[in-house]
């Protein structure tokens, strides 16, 4: 049996839209956020689950939410990597994925 997206989903129940007006830029595109929330909370609300190509042919993405898995490392205004799940969003900054896709794993043959 295949279940389709047919369940009524009551998204954004809270009156969040009124309160959101700050924005940062993900790969140049504006992403709105509410003061006090993290970059990853805002990215996920914008439907940006896939953060782009990362190491080992994987994708940058949110996973653990506590800085333990290091899968959501982003660069803010070109700076060194920080966890999107820990870092409070700031207005006006440019944010990109920090995991270098070109940096492939080099394994020594056994």
């Amino acid at each position, binding site marked *: 049996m295949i*279940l389709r997206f047919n369940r009524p*989903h009551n998204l954004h129940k809270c009156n969040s839209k009124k309160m959101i007006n700050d924005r940062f830029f993900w790969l140049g595109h504006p992403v709105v956020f509410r003061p006090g929330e993290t970059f990853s909370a805002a990215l996920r609300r914008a439907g940006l689950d896939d953060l782009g190509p990362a190491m080992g042919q994987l994708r940058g993405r949110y996973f653990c939410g506590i800085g*333990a898995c290091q899968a959501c490392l982003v660069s803010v205004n070109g700076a060194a990597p920080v966890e999107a799940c820990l870092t409070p969003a700031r207005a006006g900054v440019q944010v990109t994925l920090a995991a270098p896709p070109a940096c492939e794993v080099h394994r020594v043959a056994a």
Partner: protein
Amino acid sequence: MWQPDVLVVGGGPAGVAAAVDLAGMGLSVLLAEQRDRLGGAIHRAYAGVGSSPVKRNAHHERRWHALLAQVQQEGARLRVQLQSVFLGVEGDGRYLLDDRVAGRVRPVRPRAVVMAVGGVERVLPVPGWELPGVSTVGGLQLQLKETGEAPLGPILVAGSGPLPLAYAAQLAAAGHPPLALLERGTPFGTALAHPGAAFNGLRSWPPLAEALGYARQLWRSGVPYRTGCRVKAIEAMAQGLRVTAVDQRGQTQVYEVAQLALHDGLDVNQTGLPRQTAAGLPVVWAGDCREVLGAEAAVQDGRQAAQQVAKALGQPCPEANFDDRLQSARRLQAALRTLYQVPTLDIMPETVVCRCEGLRASGFAALQGAGSAHEIRVIGRFAMGACQGRFCARAAQALAAQAGVAFEPQDLRGSVPRWPLRPVSVAALAAYTDE
């Protein structure tokens, strides 16, 4: 620069309880927390205006607000440093904190240390668990607490234990019920087979009442709770995920979702922590990073750690015994482990084991010459990624055991902590001062 008597790392229930007690004993305390607010995962603060739309355990909330009030009362003796990440320890006992507000690494030279960094979720590897849209239940739950909003699109909650039940019920209460809650174990059948464990679970009334409340919420929202059912594979579609689940009779069911929440229990989190036996400087681990006993017990464990530190420093402190309360939490956790016991998972060859570098289970075939945890790490690169083995060590250990190489999961991480524990900018290191 001001130097505290005690450095406490981690601003969840264990760390805050330890810090408050230590300050109350007259010691100066620096409490370092990686986030911009105290609370840890359990008490993640609502970022919206007004009160959180997500219902929380009232008893836990009261206790937490009492602790926060105590932090305020201690004043200058207890300093809280937010957005500061523990990186490691320099040879001469300087604890390095990455102060991400100031943009520089700060050394701390405490007389004692409490490490209370919290636990980590266990997630068993299944094909596709590395895809975007797949997150841990705890990770999604703390975003629900923080934003007051459910994730976008249809969601499936799967895995094992009480946390998926709680999260599924919270989603339903927020008006966004999951398509289903899949539980790998068979807690009801197990309760009949192990009445002792069931009895021990029943003795702990508050958590049981909480679980019944969640079950009622799921029932009212019409969320199916399927026990003995596990996720077999996850595939990326043009939009969203196709999740194939299989039950005990081998019947499969396919769910098309935008989000999949996975959780297979909680683990201690000791990767990169300075050892408790460090010569000279007393170091005590507290809370779920030391032993997974839950938020309630973490407060007691933090207070116990404070007492141990005070004794080690020769500071007078009130005598208190925390054994009974920790023991009762231990009994409940043991009962839960029995009730939620699950069959071991066969790891398919194509399954990604290392989520940092994309190493697959099939990569183990190339490691036939590797005869130890050390060789699997150095040659195979398992546990060498940015997460330092937090999410692959168990699977790598299971795969190695099948190949006849026996070791404990923590052995894969090696005996020397890999510091810095987190990425740190060269600019922050260059701004390091010892004044």
